[in-house]
């Protein structure tokens, strides 16, 4: 008997056909295909533009007002939005606009560091456990499961006396340390199936080291997952920070974050709504925009997921 496994060959032919028929450029890779899909998604553009604008605002927003977040305008305390205090002031005369920009800045920094950091931990730990297997894998899986059943929020609350006195970066690190586990499990499972793929075997038989195989063959092949996770991780990290700060366990004055502002604004939400509404609005818009980007990314990477399914 000859010859072929027609299933696998026709599979291959069909992909070749698809690439041909879409008149993809010569050097089209998967990344280019994802970008093409992403480009045609309005959600992505809306989200990206809003996120971009908010980052610019967080950086430049204080330059255009004469108030700094710590200034106290005692004559104009507890006033609503005016020509001078665009978002109004609180009871000790601090400018809500300046505080909101400053809070947004801190929340963004925390989110942009903690989200990707947690993805990085997930990628390294998950790929290592999945690739090496055996005892290391068993230990890591056990650790992941342990961390998953621990109440992360409660532990952060318990630890808050420690990082209250330290830089907010410590809080950021702790948030990252408590949010990588689920993704690590996903990456571990993906790695296990990649490990049996022939190109990984080929590399192993060439004598390529474990670290290099993970870096060169495993991580690039789960890159799309990682990008999505990092994006949505930003949302999760900002949320955790906000919640912690809201209950007084996170950022401490004189530093402010959106969570701190929300906490301060809540008691007067009905009497002086500007103290609450502006930071809340900024938070909601930010999280929504980042989620839009993450969602669009996920659909572009995996066209069978979510809203593009037909």
């Amino acid at each position, binding site marked *: 008997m000859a*010859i072929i496994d*027609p299933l696998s060959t*026709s599979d291959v032919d069909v992909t*070749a056909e698809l690439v041909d*028929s879409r008149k993809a450029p010569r050097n089209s890779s998967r990344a280019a295909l994802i970008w093409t899909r992403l480009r045609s998604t309005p959600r992505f553009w809306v989200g990206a533009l809003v996120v971009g604008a908010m980052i610019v605002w967080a950086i430049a927003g204080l330059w255009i007002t004469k108030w700094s977040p710590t200034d106290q305008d005692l004559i104009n305390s507890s006033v609503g939005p005016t020509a001078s205090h665009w978002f109004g002031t609180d009871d000790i005369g601090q400018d809500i606009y300046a505080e909101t920009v400053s809070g947004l800045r801190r929340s963004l920094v925390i989110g942009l560091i903690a989200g990707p950091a947690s993805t990085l931990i997930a990628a390294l730990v998950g790929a290592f456990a999945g690739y090496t297997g055996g005892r290391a894998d068993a230990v890591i899986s056990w650790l992941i499961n342990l961390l998953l059943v621990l109440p992360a929020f409660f532990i952060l609350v318990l630890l808050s006396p420690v990082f209250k006195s330290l830089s907010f970066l410590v809080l950021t690190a702790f948030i990252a340390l408590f949010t990588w586990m689920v993704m690590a499990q996903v990456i571990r499972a993906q790695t296990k199936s990649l490990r049996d793929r022939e*190109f990984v*075997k080929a*590399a192993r038989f*060439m004598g390529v080291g474990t670290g290099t195989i993970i870096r060169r063959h495993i991580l690039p092949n789960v890159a799309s997952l990682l990008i999505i996770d990092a994006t949505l991780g930003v949302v999760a990290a900002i949320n955790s920070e906000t919640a912690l700060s809201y209950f007084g366990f996170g950022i401490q004055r004189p530093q402010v974050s959106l969570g701190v502002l929300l906490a301060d604004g809540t008691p007067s939400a009905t009497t002086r709504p500007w103290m609450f509404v502006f930071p809340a609005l900024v938070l909601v818009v930010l999280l929504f925009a980042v989620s839009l980007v993450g969602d669009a990314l996920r659909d572009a990477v995996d066209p069978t997921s979510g809203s593009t399914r037909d």
Partner: protein
Amino acid sequence: MTDAPLLEVRDLSVSFPQGADEVRAVRGISYTVDQGEFLGIVGESGSGKSVSSMAIMGLLPRNAVVTGDVLLRGESLLGRDDRELSRLRGKEIAMIFQDPLSALTPVYTVGDQIAEGLMLHDRALSQQAASVRAVELLRVVGIPAPERRVKAFPHEFSGGMRQRVMIAIAIANDPDLIIADEPTTALDVTIQAQILEVLQQAKEMTGAAVVLITHDLGVVAGNADRIAVMYAGRLVETGSVDDVFSRPEMPYTIGLLRSVPNLVTAGRTRLVPLEGRPPSLSDLPPGCPFEPRCPISVPECTTAEPPLLVLGGGHSAACIRAPEIESGALQASDVFPRPEPVSLGSEIGSEQEPVLTIEGLVRHFPLTTGMVFKKQIGTVKAVDGIDLQVRAGEVLGLVGESGCGKSTTILEVLEMTRPQAGSIRIAGRDVADLSRSDRLSLRKDVQIVFQDPMAALDPRLTVGDIIGEPLTVHGDSKMERRRRVAELLDLVGLEHSMSSRYPHEFSGGQRQRIGIARALATNPRLLVLDEPVSALDVSIQAGVMNLLEDLKARLRLSYLFVAHDLAVVRQIADTVAVMYLGRIVETGDVGEVFARPHHPYTQALMSAVPIPDPEAERSRERILLDGDLPSPTDEISGCNFHGRCPLYKILDPSRQQQCVTEDPRLRMIDTTSAACHHVEQNTLQPL
């Protein structure tokens, strides 16, 4: 009855809209099938074989656009509603698919599924009578103990047995036409021979016509009366098998026939490669679709597609130059000349240490049940004490059916760690006591080429990075790597500019060349080739086989060539080892073993391989094996082949006793070795 042919396909076209384009899978094919005729349709993957037969059965997805007509005894089948069609299906036309598991319903017993088909078309039949008939049908298709097996579920059957059940269902209602789409492609050769035999029997019993779709020219040669060759959605040549095989008139068919290794001639002549690949079906040029690959094309070929011209003796071909070929003005050897033989630079070095020596290698896998408390319930003896040797410049072909332990053997070699028992020596060094750095440097000497070239190349790396990867391990500089990659691309016949492209932009044959280039990067001494051509289309195989032959001679390589296809092994190997259930049952010089196989298993394996030559096929007597490969967990006493051995059955009881109790060891017989007690009594005649 009228004298209309049983089945007439008239100008059938099928296309699938795909965005702005459409894939024109079938483009105007016409053929007829007469009562009781056996038609073979051959073609490469994607040529439209399956789609055209699905169109006849009305089984295409909804988005398919079908035009033309299909007539069964003069009555049109297209445009009928589903109810009428299902009445016809099964009763008049039956279909057998490649994958019988997905065609059988897993939750019903095999007997129920046969009975269901029977009662659907014959309301008067009682349940009782239907089950009696089901048992009968299972017996006809050769299922042992049908009374018991009729109550089994599909997953309890092996692939070959499921295919038998499919045939039983197909013939249950005494159809007039059976369409079989690659019915044996997923099966081993010995099982394929059994199934084709059953199909022939079924045809004789029911008097039905058969349309057999396959990519394997040998299968057609041995079974069909007439053949139709498809290329890029068109019929390009039709005629009786004898005519087409002996006097092909379309260049594509000529090339195809000269590109497949043939068990009888393999190893003596070189294969003719058919360069290039079939055109994309969504963007076809106006002329002959074969023009880019055709060595005798003329300018007119690009202007209009040549129609299927009727030439003498019911033989038609779609080629402008077919009349010239028919008249003999153009010979097959002018169209596709055989490439130069390999220079005789490659002598097998017998004096030195062999490149690879395996002695008594054992690899057993414990078989456990239970998730938490593991309990060992048996042992899979994947490799059970084998000896192999590959000398410098030698090609050792390791053949055997799926599950016999070929892959486990090569993985053991490549892991380069201490085996469970026995020893592996590579270039004179025992792998059991290698230090880390020694193992790394030894890896330079042994490289692997995998079966599926797509899976073996990282889709995210450029071709240059893929080929250069082995060099990164050994600390070559970037410049050096780039130079070497260019050299390697040359060596395997690809262009330098391709190094910045990605694997998915290449055809199967090109991808396999990339895989070979990567394997050659470190200047290895031994290449392990794991079914290197079995995932490739027929027309592309020859090019890769020739490349491997050339490389071997030029670089003085040794190959451990693993394959299930005996003709491919015959073509390239110097020595051959036949494996069965973890053991080597016969080994020796390839010419000797193929000319005079001694072990009954080798004989059966060889006689099961179809030969793409109708005349040779007709004169062959098949040695058919009983049943399937035993489960690897079974404890078999004595010779592990005795349950299926055709020789065992004709031996006298005392000799049989020896087979059952004594484990035969390999012993020299003439110039080859075989593991059988009774070689001297062997009167079976293979080939």
